[in-house]
């Protein structure tokens, strides 16, 4: 590695026995043990190289920015150092002192370089010590971590303009278009209008300057409109409108252009992230209630369906939501500060009122079930041997188990382990990968009780004297929770009678439950060990989404009901007052009309033409009310969703059926229970009516009395064939034999599709604003 030191150009000099000047730092010290001196040159930084002495007479060493020289071994010649204390080779001659002017270049190639080293020895004269350093660079790549933290700092100041208005009636309007003050060319009326929840619009007309007109140059141009009060102390500008040109319309008859402008509310909203829209509105959205919005403007409107307020932009461009209720009265207008005849009202119409909404909501999902059942079977070897019953094969048992439609697995209990360490629930996929059964084979020999006979067989790997098996079954049940949500305004119903509407919402999981049923490895795993497990499962539309959808639906209903109770209007016109805004509540207080409510519309118009000259503000307020007086107070119900019903626990009878001991049922004997039952489970087998006999025959030795010789006396003749079983009773033989397993039935209420009904009523309190008329 080669490091660059910032010392190039600095002198190298040394005083024998004393300090070394220049090069940031250097030092010299006589070496008493040696015959010469050491000169060290400090590179002033990390030189990053490690020259090696290359043979006698050429000593140089460096480390950490220090170069050392041993003159005792030096040979006069061309000497130099390379590295931190970079020097120029070309100007160096051995034995001469060199000066700072030489030390200005940084060698750019590998090799030997020769640097002057001027040492002033204590006595007199100069001593030049040639230094030869072979620079041997290690090779390779080096990557140094570089952490750059860019910070900035400073002060921030936001301008604050405070307008203290006087009583002057003089005014003018100031209109800027694309940053240019065009007020002098404005003609006719300048209008701007705010409606709650909508864009702020404006319209004005210009007499354009002579020349060609490019209408496209105006589209989207920035527009501001100020109402300027001309006070004795100066002008006070108040913002009426900030926006952009929406449509420029050229009027060839009078050669004017009318500009229709907007504050671009829709596009501004559409350009925001949905998270931000949720942040500024505080509203709710549920796809199952409001549907998929086309764009973010539609999304914002959907959010506002759940907010009892309005989303719009102020004159400063700030997006805001203004609640309909709870605003303090900003100003009161009476006959003294309104224009004659400008006060009016429109009474609420019953047809606009909604005071009850029956909302239905369906939520469909899968309810997953898993049940386990432990089966045990143990044959009675005594009965088997005594009656020469056929061997029960494992294939017969497994076929019977498979025919139940349940899965089975190796085990001797729920959640335990057995045999060769195989755990019942150990499989990573949740269920055992391979069905297994813990078999008890037949013995190879069995002494038949009460006889000297021995029962013998050698089919130990394929036969089953007994077994234990865990059976499990999992299935999905379609559940459709059906909510009936009644949202009503009791005060309004008392006053106006019930005026009902309906709303709907739904949410359904599209998760494929059949795949889960058919794939024993599919998740979720319901194998915690309980014999009966249930889980509501909707990974794409879970309970949280359901609750959010219900709350959204309730909020939509509440807002519709409240909004329908603010259909009355009162209005008035006053001199231009730019403080009137749809974010304010105003009061009209006249002998004939008293009304308080949030502003829903503001229309400012001004005309500075010589033959006109007016600047007014018309405002409309929307008093909320239900009309009732002295009614019981309503406490508004929170939008909390009702609790969904949980599945009932299985009955004790159901539980008892899950854990069955299977047994032998032997027919054809006089003692066999009759009649046979279809409920029997286990091995149902008849003793054989005939017996296969294989008699090798036998004889016994005897002494012939006549001959006194030993002879063989026949005891039994050799015989192979069938013979009747004397124990067999044909009338007691069972008709349906084999190995039978009947698993407990799954109850209908956990198997069939269900649609539990859930009901809840929400009460809405209608804000009661002042709204009185005097005849």
């Amino acid at each position, binding site marked *: 590695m080669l490091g660059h030191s910032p010392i190039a150009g600095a002198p190298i000099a040394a005083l024998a026995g004393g300090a070394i000047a220049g090069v940031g730092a250097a030092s010299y010290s006589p070496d008493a043990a040696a015959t010469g001196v050491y000169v060290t040159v400090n590179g002033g930084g990390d030189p990053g190289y490690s020259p090696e002495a290359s043979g006698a007479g050429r000593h140089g060493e460096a480390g950490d920015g220090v170069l050392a020289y041993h003159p005792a071994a030096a040979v006069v010649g061309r000497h130099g150092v390379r590295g931190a204390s970079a020097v120029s080779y070309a100007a160096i001659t051995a034995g001469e002192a060199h000066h700072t002017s030489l030390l200005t270049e940084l060698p750019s190639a590998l090799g030997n370089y020769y640097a002057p080293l001027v040492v002033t020895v204590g006595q007199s004269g100069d001593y030049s010590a040639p230094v030869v350093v072979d620079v041997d660079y290690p090779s390779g790549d080096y990557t140094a971590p570089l952490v750059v*933290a*860019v910070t900035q*700092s400073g002060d*921030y100041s*936001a301008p604050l303009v*405070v307008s*203290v208005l006087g009583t002057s009636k003089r005014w003018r309007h100031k209109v800027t278009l694309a940053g240019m003050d065009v007020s002098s060319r404005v003609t006719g009326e300048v209008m701007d209008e705010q409606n709650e929840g909508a864009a702020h619009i404006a319209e004005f007309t210009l007499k354009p300057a002579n020349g060609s007109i490019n209408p496209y140059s105006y589209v989207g141009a920035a527009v501001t409109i100020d109402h300027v009060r001309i006070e004795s102390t100066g002008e006070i500008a108040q913002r009426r409108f900030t926006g952009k040109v929406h449509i420029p319309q050229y009027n060839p008859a009078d050669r004017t252009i009318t500009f229709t402008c907007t504050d671009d509310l829709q596009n501004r909203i559409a350009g925001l992230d949905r*998270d*931000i829209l949720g942040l500024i509105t505080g509203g709710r959205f549920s796809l199952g209630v409001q549907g998929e919005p086309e764009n973010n403007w539609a999304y914002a409107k959907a959010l506002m369906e759940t907010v009892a307020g309005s989303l719009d932009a102020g004159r400063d461009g700030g997006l805001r939501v203004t609640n309909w209720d709870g605003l303090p009265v900003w100003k009161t207008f009476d006959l003294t500060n309104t224009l004659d005849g400008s006060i009016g009202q429109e009474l609420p119409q019953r047809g606009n009122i909604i005071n009850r909404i029956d909302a239905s909501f369906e939520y469909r999902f899968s309810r997953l079930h898993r049940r386990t059942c432990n089966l045990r079977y143990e044959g009675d070897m005594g009965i088997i041997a005594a009656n020469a019953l056929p061997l029960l094969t494992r294939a017969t048992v497994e076929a019977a188990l498979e025919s139940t439609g349940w899965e089975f697995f190796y085990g001797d209990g729920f959640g335990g382990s057995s045999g060769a360490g195989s755990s019942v629930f150990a499989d990573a996929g949740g269920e055992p990968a391979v069905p297994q059964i813990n078999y008890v084979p037949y013995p190879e020999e069995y002494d038949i009780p009460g006889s000297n006979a021995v029962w013998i067989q050698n089919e130990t790997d394929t036969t089953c004297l007994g077994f234990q098996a865990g059976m499990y079954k999992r299935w999905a049940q379609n559940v459709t929770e059906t909510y009936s949500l009644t949202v009503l305004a009791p005060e309004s119903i008392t006053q106006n009678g019930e005026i009902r509407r309906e709303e709907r919402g739904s949410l359904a999981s599209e998760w494929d439950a059949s795949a889960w049923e058919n794939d024993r490895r599919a998740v979720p795993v319901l194998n915690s060990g309980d014999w009966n497990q249930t889980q509501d499962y909707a990974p794409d539309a879970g309970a949280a989404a359901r609750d959010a959808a219900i709350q959204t639906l309730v909020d939509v209903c509440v807002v519709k009901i409240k909004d329908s109770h603010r259909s009355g209007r009162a209005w008035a016109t006053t001199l231009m007052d730019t403080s009137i805004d749809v974010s304010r509540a105003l009061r009209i207080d006249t002998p004939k009309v008293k009304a308080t409510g949030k502003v829903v519309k503001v229309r400012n118009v001004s005309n500075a033409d010589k033959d006109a000259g007016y600047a007014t503000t018309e405002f409309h307020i929307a008093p909320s009310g239900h009309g009732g007086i002295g009614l019981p107070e309503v406490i508004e119900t929170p939008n909390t969703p009702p609790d969904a019903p949980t599945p009932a626990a299985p009955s004790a009878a159901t539980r008892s059926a899950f854990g069955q001991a299977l047994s032998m049922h032997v027919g054809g004997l006089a003692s066999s229970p009759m009649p046979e039952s279809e409920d029997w489970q286990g091995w149902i087998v008849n003793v054989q009516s005939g017996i296969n006999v294989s008699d090798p025959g036998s004889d016994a030795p005897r002494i012939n009395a006549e001959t006194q010789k030993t002879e063989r006396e026949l005891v039994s003749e050799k015989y192979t064939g069938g013979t009747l079983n004397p124990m067999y009773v044909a009338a007691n033989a069972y008709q349906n034999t084999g190995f039978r397993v009947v698993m407990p039935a799954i109850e209908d209420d956990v198997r069939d599709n269900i649609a539990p009904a859930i009901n809840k009523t929400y009460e809405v309190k209608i804000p009661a604003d002042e709204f009185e008329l005097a005849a």
Partner: protein
Amino acid sequence: MATDIAIFHDAAGTSPVTAGNPLTAAPDASSSAAGQQKWIGSTGSGIKHRRKTLPGVNQLQLSVTDANDASGLAVTDVRFALTEAGLTSATWGASLNLGVEILSGVANMVSFWYQVKDSVAAVAQYSDLSISILDVRDDPA
């Protein structure tokens, strides 16, 4: 470089306060202007705004700067609060603590309220006051 922190007219950070779109108030001689809500923060990402002096310890503060002490309105004509209700008990002219750190991003903006009164009682448009956040340092978050 200056700090990225700014005051906005809305919680979405779409309308910053500028010279052409300043903070405004219109008090009259008899009453204070209504409180107004604004938001402080920055719309970028990956930045934390702290005090340059003892960052993470000292509070970021909202204060009033008066460009002309000799005339116009005074620092004590403005008061701040973090809530509208808090305005009534806030001290005129007092700075407002905003916390030791504000992270960039719309979701992290801090809302505040300000209210202006007119101690001069002279009809005019005053622009000598500014609402400031001084000694701010922006670091990677």
